């Protein structure tokens, strides 16, 4: 559990203003924001590397504002991993054990478990310089986790990775979070991370927290125009994934949508998006390779000159982008009954 009260930091070049945050134990908290918003500074303040003049930080109820970093038991994984370049992978991972003697047999067991889980066996004797990006991340994760921290801070752990590695590490993070119950606090500017990982999120800008809350809340009910613009995504939905026969559906509560999923996960809560330009509006239903065709009622039309944003209520509010010619040909008005169609491959899932 992390609690931050009225935190101010003022340095030349960066500042934090009146930060108030409360993160429950076991949460996967994601901090979003543009570059230069002060996200990394907040991370380093929590871990104890930035001296605090005004404000308080509590970890598990204890005021650690004046404690040095080595007393806080907070793991940190930097974007560049910050592996010790002069130590082998094994020595990197074991580094923290010198200073945390609590039940050394237990620590060693944890070490072995982490090596196995993160598939580090074959690289234990290598130096960091000989590792791939994905391997470096896994080592940095193992090093931070081996001391069994109460909180794990992650500074854009997925940026600067190849797409394959990104996917892999993202799943790893999810798995570790679910298994260990450690509180995760992750900085990112990738929405995919948020939708895939977060149980709670905050948006930060110019040293201030703009909004904190559930992920859907933040995307669907942005509290400020900055948050709305920064997120800028339409058609974000949450639902439960269901497999029926060979096909996969997501039930949002309001509607059921077919998706093209080759994912292992069978059921559970997911987020998904559909790009407005991938949605077709028609006045009659039709059968085609577009797997999803839903009746609905036009609730909003936004004129952008050559193109129109048409929002229809099909159980969920969904927005489509169409050309002026289409719009005029169909003579659409608010309240009209229409059909929205989109291909199952156009549904982007975040599982």
């Amino acid at each position, binding site marked *: 559990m992390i609690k931050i009260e009225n935190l101010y930091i003022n340095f030349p070049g960066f500042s934090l203003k009146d930060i108030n945050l409360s993160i429950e134990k076991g949460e996967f908290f994601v901090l979003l924001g543009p570059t230069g918003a002060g996200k990394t500074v907040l991370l380093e303040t929590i871990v104890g590397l930035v001296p605090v003049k005004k404000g308080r930080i509590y970890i598990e109820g204890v005021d650690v504002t004046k404690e040095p*970093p080595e007393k806080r038991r907070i793991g940190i994984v930097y974007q560049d991993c910050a592996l010790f370049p002069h130590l082998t992978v094994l020595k990197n991972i074991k580094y923290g054990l*010198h*200073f945390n003697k609590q039940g050394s047999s237990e620590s060693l067991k944890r070490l072995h478990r982490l090596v196995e889980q993160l598939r580090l066996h074959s690289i234990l004797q290598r130096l960091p310089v000989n590792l791939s990006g994905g391997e470096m991340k896994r080592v940095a994760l193992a090093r931070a986790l081996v001391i069994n921290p109460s909180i794990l801070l992650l500074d854009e752990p997925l940026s600067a990775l190849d797409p394959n590695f990104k996917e892999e590490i993202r799943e790893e993070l999810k798995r570790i979070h679910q298994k260990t119950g450690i509180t995760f606090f992750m900085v990112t500017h990738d929405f995919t991370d948020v939708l895939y990982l977060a149980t709670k999120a905050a948006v930060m800008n110019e040293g201030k927290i703009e909004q904190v809350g559930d992920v859907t809340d933040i995307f669907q009910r942005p509290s400020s125009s900055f948050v709305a613009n920064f997120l800028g995504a339409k058609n974000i939905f949450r639902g439960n994934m269901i497999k029926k026969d060979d096909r996969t559906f997501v039930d949002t509560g309001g509607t059921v949508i077919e998706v093209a999923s080759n994912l292992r996960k069978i059921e559970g809560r997911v987020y998904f998006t559909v790009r407005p330009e991938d949605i077709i509006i028609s006045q009659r239903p039709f059968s085609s390779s577009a797997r999803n065709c839903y009746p609905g009622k036009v609730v909003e039309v936004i004129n952008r000159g050559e193109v129109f944003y048409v929002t229809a209520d099909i159980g969920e509010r969904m927005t489509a982008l169409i050309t002026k010619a289409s719009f005029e040909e169909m003579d659409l008005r608010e309240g009209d009954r229409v059909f929205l169609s989109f291909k199952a491959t156009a549904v982007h899932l975040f599982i």
Partner: protein
Amino acid sequence: MSNRREFFTIVTVVCGVIVMGFITLPLIKMFMSSSWSSLSATVKDKDVLKSIWLSVYTASLAGIISFFVGTPFAYLLARKDFPGKRIVENIIDLPMVIPHPVVGIAILSVVGRNYWFGQILSRIGVRVMGSVLGIVVVLTFVGMPFYINAAKDGFRGVSSRLEGVSRSLGASLFSTFLRVTFPLAWRSMLVGIIMCSARAISEFGAVVVIAYHPMIAPVLIYERFEAYGLSYSQPVAVLLTLVCLTLFLVLRILSVPKDLKI
């Protein structure tokens, strides 16, 4: 225009040859002027050996003292910002621009008998003037800036994120320094020690004010030159230069990163 272009290229090469000749010719000539017999005689001269040994010994001491006193300070300068830091950094470089005899005179001003500090020293039996201690003090004074600057650059080259991670894993500031910063910066520190010693071993003006005796090699060379003339001082100069060149060579090899070594 093509001619003018070639002209400028030729000028750069000609200037290069002039500079190289200006630097190397005197040294080469000095080396060649000393016959093997005079060199071997010099090597057997106990006074010469003693003075060279004293030079090496005091210069090394200056390097070691700079290492112990300068390392924590260099680390402070590399990691922390504080008001007046630029002024402090300027003061560290001062010994590099003070004329050499003035360095000796300034140090004498403090340890001399007409100052309370010097009086205390003389009362407890510590002699600075004309002693090995005095030489070491002077050499440390002129060499220290070289060590501190090299070590500071070395520490700056170690990412503070590595130290942050180490702290978050439970290591104290001191453990972090020993286990992370030092192993990554030792090369710069060693280069700093050698630079400090090389500067110290070449010093003459400051030492001759504080201690004509015991004689370090540059003083001995000067004395022989004054007393017996050029040809008598050359062999000693050659020997000392060889010592300095060895130091210099080690320095250069160390300061080249591993993968760039020739």
